[in-house]
């Protein structure tokens, strides 16, 4: 084949170039926001309540709102998701209609765009269940949204526990639940935790669904029945309505830092737990 050598050289260049572009994009996005946002960050910005619709003051109430929303949604979704995963992998018959249905459900839920969750949360929780724009509505909506993430990762983690472990445990005279509790879940913990951290990230970043279910109130949320504005919604409002670009940068910076931290946690949990256990 003539020209093969030159062709391969060109291809190599192209591949390196595309990798550079990706790195460039990341550096541009993160770098610019960090560069601009860093100037805004101080204790006041974090600790003070927003004033004049966010034009002045800090973002403390949105931080609290975000924490409220994510923790609550995770608390709802995690047991459900892990439970579903255990049921699917350990109890349900693999070929059964029910298992197929659940798997299909998880896939579909994972694919549904967040705006649809927003719509649903709005009609169902806010209006139909009369929860109003509240942290409850937002968390429940987010919980449904992140449930497939948790289920899927937990399912995969459980699936990756070798079949031999179970057989060995059963052959030692352990019951099924003993086997799951003592062997399967400990071995799958790294995957399960990673799934939860991923869900956490997704919940923090979510905007559209939260916007439609938790409202945009800037007041400090005290109970889950109160409406709240999350940091990402706050960023959206600030930017779209051009209220305060500096504060927008500051918020974006905080979101990115939070996510970086979560990303780091996910990596650590994966490697730490897998080294310790697996």
């Amino acid at each position, binding site marked *: 084949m003539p020209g093969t050598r030159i062709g391969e050289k060109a291809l190599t260049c192209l591949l390196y170039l595309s990798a550079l572009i990706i790195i460039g994009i990341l550096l541009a996005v993160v770098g610019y926001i960090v560069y601009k946002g860093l100037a805004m960050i101080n204790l006041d910005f974090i600790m003070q309540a927003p004033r004049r619709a966010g034009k002045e003051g800090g973002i403390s109430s949105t931080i609290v709102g975000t924490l409220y929303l994510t923790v609550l949604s995770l608390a709802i979704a995690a047991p459900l998701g892990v439970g579903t995963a255990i049921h699917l992998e350990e109890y349900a018959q693999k070929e059964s209609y029910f298992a197929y249905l659940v798997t299909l459900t998880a896939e579909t839920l994972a694919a549904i765009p967040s705006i649809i969750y927003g719509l649903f949360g709005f009609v169902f929780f806010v209006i139909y269940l009369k929860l109003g724009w509240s942290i409850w509505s937002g968390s429940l909506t987010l919980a449904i949204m992140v449930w497939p993430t948790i289920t899927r990762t937990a399912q995969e983690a459980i699936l990756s526990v070798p079949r031999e*472990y179970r057989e060995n445990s*059963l*052959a*030692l005279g352990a019951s099924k639940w003993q086997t799951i509790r003592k062997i399967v879940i400990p071995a799958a913990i790294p995957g399960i935790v990673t799934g939860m951290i991923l869900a956490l990230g997704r919940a923090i970043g979510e905007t559209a669904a939260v916007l439609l279910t938790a409202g945009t109130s800037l007041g400090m949320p005290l109970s889950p029945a109160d409406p709240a504005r999350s940091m990402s919604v706050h960023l959206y409002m600030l930017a779209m309505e051009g209220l305060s670009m500096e504060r927008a940068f500051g918020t974006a910076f905080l979101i990115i830092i939070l996510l970086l931290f979560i990303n780091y946690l996910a990596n650590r949990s994966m490697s730490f737990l897998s080294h310790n256990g*697996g």
Partner: protein
Amino acid sequence: MEKAIKMKSRELNLFYGNFQALYNINMDIEENRVTALIGPSGCGKSSFLRSLNRLNELIEGSRISGEVFLDDSAIYEKGINVVELRKKVGMVFQKPAVFPMSIYENVAYGPRIHGIKKRSELDEIVCRSLQSANLWDEVKDRLVAPANQMSGGQQQRLVIARVLAVQPEVILMDEPASALDPISTARLEELIAILKTRYTIVIVTHNMQQAARVSDYTGFFLHGCLLEFNRTEELFLNPRHNKTEDYITGRFG
């Protein structure tokens, strides 16, 4: 030198859905002897082995007819405690599946499951089991190390120690050496020779030479039937069936 019959199967049939995997198996397994099961792939060796401690029940759609006896009690009888049965009839699998815990915890797993909580008691069981599995000297200084840092052969012996810790009477082994290198295999075979003085062992192996080396009795399976069952020496030197002869001389298929 005839010994007592520890386990026996009578007219055992096994089905996976509509597929019949075993046909009328009658086998007597002598106490304190090694019984080897050989035969071409898919002939039903593993299926038979797993039906000896009802592990076949884990497979969806598997059904059984006929009887299996352990010490004259029928293990498929209603009301039999499967957990008790599996305690008595332990199993070692092809791939050494050590649990992702420390060496100590691996061995203590079974006793813990069965309700032993006292540390001193556990310590003693762990020590005794590891000694019986010929592993104590190699691991006594690192009992808390993760078990999966051991070599394949050590792992397989650890799995055996784990089985010994629940004080079984019969040990079933499904191709326990097929994932091991020749040296580990040799050590495992030595271990089997020692263990048979105290336990009854049934071993499935693809390796005819291995069956010949370790076992006192050998059963040859073909298409789900137990074609020939005899003293190992007889079976390998003077097989009664032509099919057995063909298989062990490698003229098969």
